[in-house]
């Protein structure tokens, strides 16, 4: 056999380089795709549906997230869990202080601060009133005025005494209730857990109706979060909200939980100033905030407060909001106006505040 000509050697070398390049490109593409690959995971935690879409992570990340949310509920915040720190505090109301973890303490302190700032429109000590109405529970009913008055006397958040890590409720029957912020706090701990995994480029997590976005969406510049139509079904959309990077979105609405008695609807967002479901022309308020705790607490507060007062609170906390009214009006704070696209024809943008 003839030895290879010089030209043959060159052709072989070029061919090998081309072949190597083709293989290298396909390997790099596969690696790149797996980094941008979405892993979706749905489970139940905190009594709600927890849904995650994580880019660049694995199912293991999703499992650690749902576990963190479940533990936050069962060991810390739940008022129904037998072993949670909040249950211990409530059981010892009027009896003795209870020593709690730094984490639980920080939620209580933040809760009191927002209760104070919103004049009780958001109130972390409403357990007695919430249990009395039992909306969303087994036996919801309209209580008598006398019962309401007694319950309200047990909802004074200034009667939560804190000394170091010791928390004491001054009167027996007082109950801290984190129902209005639990899902938001769940979003916070979910993102904290995701941040511990450097592989994750971006994620969207929802706990019940609260949503967190984190990092970059590899498929688009922004995250899009659907806002539900308060008059429609579970899958009907009011519009789409564009979000950049990390943000927390919570909605409070009268359509979420309610019961009917004697032909009247009673929704679940109770007003501390009256002891009854908040009387309002609003159907719902969506708040976009730098933390889930804040977005959840403020969506409740903004639903209960009159709009002018609500706007002051939103400005103080540097948060944005979308208000949806019974008459079909939708109003927005100016920081969100450009990022919200109304889709439903039953509504119209009536006003942009401060715009």
């Amino acid at each position: 056999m003839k030895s290879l000509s010089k030209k043959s050697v060159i052709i072989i070398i070029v061919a090998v380089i081309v072949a190597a390049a083709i293989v290298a490109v396909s390997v790099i593409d596969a690696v790149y795709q797996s980094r941008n690959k979405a892993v979706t995971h749905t489970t139940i935690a905190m009594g709600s549906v927890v849904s995650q879409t994580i880019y660049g992570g694995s199912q293991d990340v999703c499992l650690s997230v749902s576990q963190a949310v479940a533990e936050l509920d069962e060991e810390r915040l739940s008022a129904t869990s037998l072993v949670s720190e909040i249950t211990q505090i409530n059981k010892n109301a009027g009896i003795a202080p209870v020593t709690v973890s730094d984490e639980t303490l920080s939620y209580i302190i933040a809760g009191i601060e927002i209760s104070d700032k919103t004049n009780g429109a958001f109130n972390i000590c409403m357990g007695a009133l919430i249990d009395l109405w039992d909306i969303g529970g087994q036996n919801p009913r309209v209580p008598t005025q006398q019962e309401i008055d007694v319950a309200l006397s047990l909802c004074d958040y200034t009667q939560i005494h804190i000394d170091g890590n010791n928390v004491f409720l001054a009167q027996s029957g007082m109950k801290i209730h984190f129902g209005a912020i639990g899902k938001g706090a769940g979003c916070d701990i979910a993102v904290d857990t995701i941040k511990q995994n450097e592989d994750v480029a971006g994620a969207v997590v929802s706990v019940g109706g609260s949503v967190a976005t984190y990092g970059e969406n590899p498929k688009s510049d922004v995250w899009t979060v659907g806002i539900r139509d308060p008059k429609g079904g579970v899958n009907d959309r009011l519009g789409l909200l564009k979000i950049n990077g990390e943000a927390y979105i919570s909605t409070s609405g009268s359509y979420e939980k309610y019961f009917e008695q004697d032909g009247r609807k009673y929704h679940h967002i109770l007003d501390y100033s009256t002891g009854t479901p908040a009387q309002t022309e609003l159907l719902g308020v969506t708040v976009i905030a730098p933390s889930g705790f804040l977005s959840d607490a403020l969506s409740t507060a903004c639903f209960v407060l009159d709009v002018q007062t609500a706007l002051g609170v939103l400005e103080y906390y540097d948060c944005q909001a979308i208000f949806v009214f019974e008459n079909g009006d939708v109003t927005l704070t100016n920081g969100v106006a450009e990022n919200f696209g109304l889709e439903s024809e039953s509504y119209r943008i009536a006003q942009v505040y401060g715009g």
Partner: protein
Amino acid sequence: MRKLFYKRDFVILAVILLVALIGMGTVWIYHNFTESTVVVIEHNSVEINRINLDKIEQSDIIFINDDDGCHVEIEVENGRARVLSSTCPDKICVNCGWLENKGDSAVCLPNKVVVRIE
């Protein structure tokens, strides 16, 4: 005058490119087709079943019961699964229909049952 290319050169070139294409194809197939479709079933936050749907030949029904009155039937067959029936008021889980793609899920909050595809 010498020929510019010998036949042998073409053969070598073709073989090398063929090898490259096979390599690329292997990476692509490995990347896209090696993962199997698995259904995971949870009840009361505990994983109770994990089934490779690609290996099912005959459809089967998984029953979930507990003392709280929960009774859920989950149908699994080749490549897909669904909640067939559930003792819940709103039937959101049943209405999810067949689950066949990764990430698809059906959740029954009242009965605390999750069915998802991984």
